[in-house]
């Protein structure tokens, strides 16, 4: 059995934070939120660009494009803090899971990617009252579940 060394962490950060001065947590959070607010429009613009690229690369769909599609979808998750609704983040996360877990060559994967991209376009820049995001996300959930079943059956 290997030897286990157990020590207490003493990060320098702890010492620095104990120094006099600083700001209250409530003020720090408010300042961070204000900083993000100034980035909202550029981030929404980046989501629009990512959606254009996703649509271009998924029509026609090719297995070689999967890593790029996955990266674009991850970027949308990252930038989705600028959206008014959380449906964009959830749809992009679902697309990442589909690209990661579904069988790459299965026709349902290609169809699933197309539906996800169309859903993301519908959800982008919307507010809650404008769209039934719950129905859209439930539909994406069913597509993902079906793709997982197919991949599981193939593996068995």
């Amino acid at each position, binding site marked *: 059995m290997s*030897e286990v060394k*157990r*020590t207490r962490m003493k990060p320098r950060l702890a010492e620095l934070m104990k120094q*006099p001065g600083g700001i209250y947590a409530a003020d720090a959070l408010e300042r*961070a939120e204000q900083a993000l607010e100034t980035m909202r429009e550029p981030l929404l613009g980046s989501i629009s660009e990512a959606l254009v690229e996703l649509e271009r690369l998924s029509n026609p769909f090719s297995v070689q494009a999967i890593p790029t599609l996955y990266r674009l979808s*991850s970027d949308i998750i*990252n930038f989705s803090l600028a959206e008014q609704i959380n449906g964009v983040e959830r749809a992009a996360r679902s697309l990442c899971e589909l690209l990661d877990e579904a069988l790459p060559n299965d026709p349902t994967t290609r169809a699933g990617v197309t539906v996800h991209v169309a859903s993301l376009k519908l959800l982008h820049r919307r507010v809650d009252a404008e769209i039934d995001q719950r129905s859209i996300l439930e539909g994406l959930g069913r597509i993902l579940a079906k793709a997982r079943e197919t991949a599981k059956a193939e593996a068995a």
Partner: protein
Amino acid sequence: MLPSTLINLEKARALIADSNGQAQDILASVLAGFGLRNVVRVNTGREAQEELRARPVDLIFTDAQIKDVDGYDLIAWLRRQNSETLRQTPAILVSAHTPLRDVARARDCGASFMVAKPLSPQVLLERILWVARSDRAFIECDVYVGPDRRWRNAGPPVEHPDGRRRDDQAAEIGQAADDNLSQTELDQLVKPQRTAA
């Protein structure tokens, strides 16, 4: 974390490792809001290694999918450096999506915490306070180097008595209720006993 909690990050130095410039901007803006302005940004895992070799930092944020050397390998590399300061630097892994095949890597690479994107200032500030203040054990053995992963049943951190998860156990759960059993008592538990019919 109370709104009146005082934080001072003015003299801290952080490293942001992310291949996406806008993702770096988001994190740098949030950190600047917290008063942490001394930030070094790198685009690849290799650049992060070079920067850390040249000058240690107080806090690392790395994207899991960063180019060249990914976030998991970057932290695993950090935890195996000779310098104790470097080895024990708090490192927070950030990820938009963690593929199933990487879940175990995320647990075992030695990250102090993992934070899901999109980043929330509230979550980020809580994690910074935890890595700075928690008296968490640091484990070094053949198969793992990093902050102790087995703290689920050790109770919540002292400064966060309400815990981090809904199913956090009370600190007393992990403590023995009675004295250890004697060898005779242990033997009686495992040896078959003849009983009268």
